[in-house]
């Protein structure tokens, strides 16, 4: 199949066009052994089906950011075969800078054609381009497309049919070998002179093809920006937007999440009915299905947050958020561009760590990656919910604050503050030879293109499913084995004890059996084994089991607690666990075992500790070694331990 790469500047309408042309046939593929990802899709043409490759937008082939380098490696055929043809996407309202890239790629002698986008916005700006003259100058077919309206997809498809090897716009000796050497990390001299020369040559083309360009009208964008970047309004708008983002996620995600949980509950009941009772039914239900449902239940939240972030990105606001936060970010060793991965971290760290590839400076990128896991991701939320509702009555106020809201907000801010502190520490420790750089285009505001936003949010979800999904399911199976099997003698005793208890209490025997079994199992032994280590934090061995099981995904905590406290799954889980937990008394203090100090200590632990194996695996992939993930595991784990200990000790005086 013929492979055609789409090449263009950022914000030129490339992804929209790609979405429109390929529709639902899109897929992202990982190149073997790397996290380098490219999106491909198929288009049916008269001459047969072609594969379209969507590459990140770039300004120049002499690229340094990780996502930009992907374009160069694709065009040079370094990772996988070279594309058979190229389609340039050129923003008609910004033709000089767009032609710079064309002039570079033209020297690679790959058959090409060109799509000129945003012709209508260009016209509004009184820029008129002579298409025939442009075809003549570039030596390749040029089509005009307005990517925001459906009408002209036909002409876009035409430019997929025919490509020719274009003219050399600006000749430079040994371009390809020099580009290859630059890609491999060798410094090249004279590149800025070469760029200036290219612009001089481009100016000659522009004189011939641009018929008229009078006013450059970006008035609306500039008017909006006066507010968005205002010292007071700008900051207020930023916080309002962030608050709306979270409020939106909380309100929109709970419905689909409940639906998924109910659906899996039904499937489990079906299994109970159709599979003979025994180990295999157990394995399918508690090992595999629990793992799968634990993965899928997060998809709505992750999708909705990335959808909302996508709307902010596509409309042009996110770039402004980078613009206004850069000054503060820079002080703590980050970059304005870090804001997007950091906000994404509230949904899921995995795609967000991958999103750091747009940060050119290696140290700033590393620091961003290292602090993203401190953002409270969606898996922590159910844990926070359970613990807060366990220990704090909904009606209680601490001073002027609603206690439950206060603790929830504190958990989020605790993560953010620790991230800021760590960013600063990393900044001080690391030595930075590379210069930090901002240089960011502020695109014209536009109404977000929903189709593009949806498909990009879906790509993030798929990243989560493929990266975290596998790990979570495997760990869930291991945990099932650990909690189903145990030393023979202990398991036997547990069974006998359960039978006895059932006789005395005349209650649901299955629940009692499960609890006794879990206590006697290897997981139970493990929980008791680590109990001395977690006792200072106010946790018992049951919490220990839940903590260990959290390595699959943090929210597994809730499920494990529900097994430990014998709450039927189809009931209101949180309510059931809560009632049972509140009855437990700490034999040492005589106070409730699972009180406010316990809950808050555990919330701090979850806020800080790096418990997600999938996140560690992604950091390993992106940094190339296990050094950082292992270091983070111990550093954040240590902080979590100390923080939880301090919280428990201090709060024990008051509650």
């Amino acid at each position, binding site marked *: 199949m013929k492979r055609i790469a789409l090449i263009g500047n950022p914000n030129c309408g490339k992804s929209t066009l790609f979405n429109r042309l390929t529709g639902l046939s899109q897929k992202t593929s990982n190149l073997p052994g790397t996290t380098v990802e490219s999106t491909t899709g198929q288009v049916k043409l008269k001459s047969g089906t072609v594969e379209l490759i969507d590459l990140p937008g770039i300004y120049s082939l*002499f690229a340094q950011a990780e996502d930009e380098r992907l374009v160069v490696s694709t065009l040079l055929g370094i990772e996988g075969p070279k594309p058979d043809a190229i389609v340039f996407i050129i923003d008609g*309202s910004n033709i000089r800078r767009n032609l710079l890239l064309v002039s570079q790629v033209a020297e690679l002698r790959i058959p090409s054609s060109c799509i000129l986008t945003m012709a209508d916005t260009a016209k509004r700006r009184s820029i008129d381009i002579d298409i025939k003259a442009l075809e003549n100058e570039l030596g390749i077919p040029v089509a005009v497309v307005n990517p925001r309206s459906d009408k002209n997809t036909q002409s876009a498809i035409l430019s997929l049919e025919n490509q020719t090897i274009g003219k050399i716009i600006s000749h430079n000796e040994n371009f390809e070998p020099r580009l290859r050497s630059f890609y491999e990390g060798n410094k090249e001299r004279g590149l800025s002179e070469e760029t200036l020369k290219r612009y001089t040559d481009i100016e000659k083309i522009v004189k011939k093809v641009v018929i008229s360009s009078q006013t*450059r009208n970006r008035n609306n964008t500039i008017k909006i920006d006066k507010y968005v*970047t205002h*010292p*007071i309004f700008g900051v207020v708008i930023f916080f309002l937007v962030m608050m709306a983002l979270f409020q939106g996620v909380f309100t929109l995600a709970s419905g689909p999440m409940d639906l998924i949980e109910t659906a899996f509950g039904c499937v489990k009941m079906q299994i109970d009915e159709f599979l003979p009772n025994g180990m295999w039914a157990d394995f399918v239900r508690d090992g595999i299905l629990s793992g799968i449902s634990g993965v899928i239940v997060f998809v709505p939240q992750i999708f909705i947050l990335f959808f909302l972030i996508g709307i902010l990105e596509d409309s042009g606001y996110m770039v402004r958020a980078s613009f206004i936060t*850069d000054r503060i970010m820079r002080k703590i060793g980050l970059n304005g561009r870090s804001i997007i991965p950091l906000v994404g971290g509230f949904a899921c760290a995995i795609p967000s760590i991958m999103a750091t590839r747009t940060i050119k400076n290696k140290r700033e990128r590393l620091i961003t990656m290292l602090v993203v896991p401190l953002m409270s991701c969606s898996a922590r939320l159910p844990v926070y919910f359970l613990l807060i509702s366990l220990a704090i009555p909904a009606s209680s106020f601490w001073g002027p604050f609603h206690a439950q809201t206060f603790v929830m907000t504190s958990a989020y801010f605790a993560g953010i503050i620790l991230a800021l502190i760590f960013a600063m520490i990393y900044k001080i420790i690391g030595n930075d030879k590379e210069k930090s750089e901002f*240089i*960011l*285009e502020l695109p014209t505001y536009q109404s977000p293109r929903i189709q593009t936003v949806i498909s990009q949010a879906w790509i993030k979800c798929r990243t989560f499913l493929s990266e975290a999904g596998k790990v979570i399911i495997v760990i869930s199976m291991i945990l099932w084995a650990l909690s189903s099997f145990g030393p023979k003698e202990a398991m036997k005793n547990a069974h006998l004890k359960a039978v006895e208890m059932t006789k005395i209490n005349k209650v649901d025997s299955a629940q009692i059996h499960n609890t006794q079994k879990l206590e006697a199992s290897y997981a139970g032994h493990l929980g008791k084994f680590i109990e001395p280590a977690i006792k200072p934090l106010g946790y018992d061995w049951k919490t220990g089991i839940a903590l260990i099981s959290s390595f699959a995904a943090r929210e597994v905590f809730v499920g494990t607690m529900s097994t430990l406290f014998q709450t039927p799954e189809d009931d209101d889980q949180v309510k059931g666990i809560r009632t049972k937990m509140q009855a437990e008394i700490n034999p040492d203090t005589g106070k409730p075992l699972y009180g406010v100090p316990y809950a808050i200590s555990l919330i701090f632990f979850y806020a800080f500790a790096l418990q997600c194996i999938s996140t560690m695996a992604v950091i390993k992939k992106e940094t190339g070694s296990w050094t950082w993930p292992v270091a983070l595991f111990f550093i954040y784990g240590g902080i979590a331990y100390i923080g939880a200990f301090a919280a428990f000790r201090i709060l024990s005086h008051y509650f």
Partner: protein
Amino acid sequence: MNTTANHIGINEIYEIRSLKENDLTLKLAEMGCVPGTEIVKLYTAPGGDPIAFRIDSYILGLRKSEAENIFVKLSELE
């Protein structure tokens, strides 16, 4: 009236004269900051840094320290 881009007033029309030779030169040139191009300071982020400029026909955000590398003169084009 020769100065660097970080010093110009808002909405005054300048023209790029040259770029300071250093690590940023290539990137700035690639972004269209080439001699002869019109440059206008539009607004700044809270705290005055970074600064948004209109370069040719698009908006570019630059840190103060980055704008220092662009030598400009008052535009004679008008």
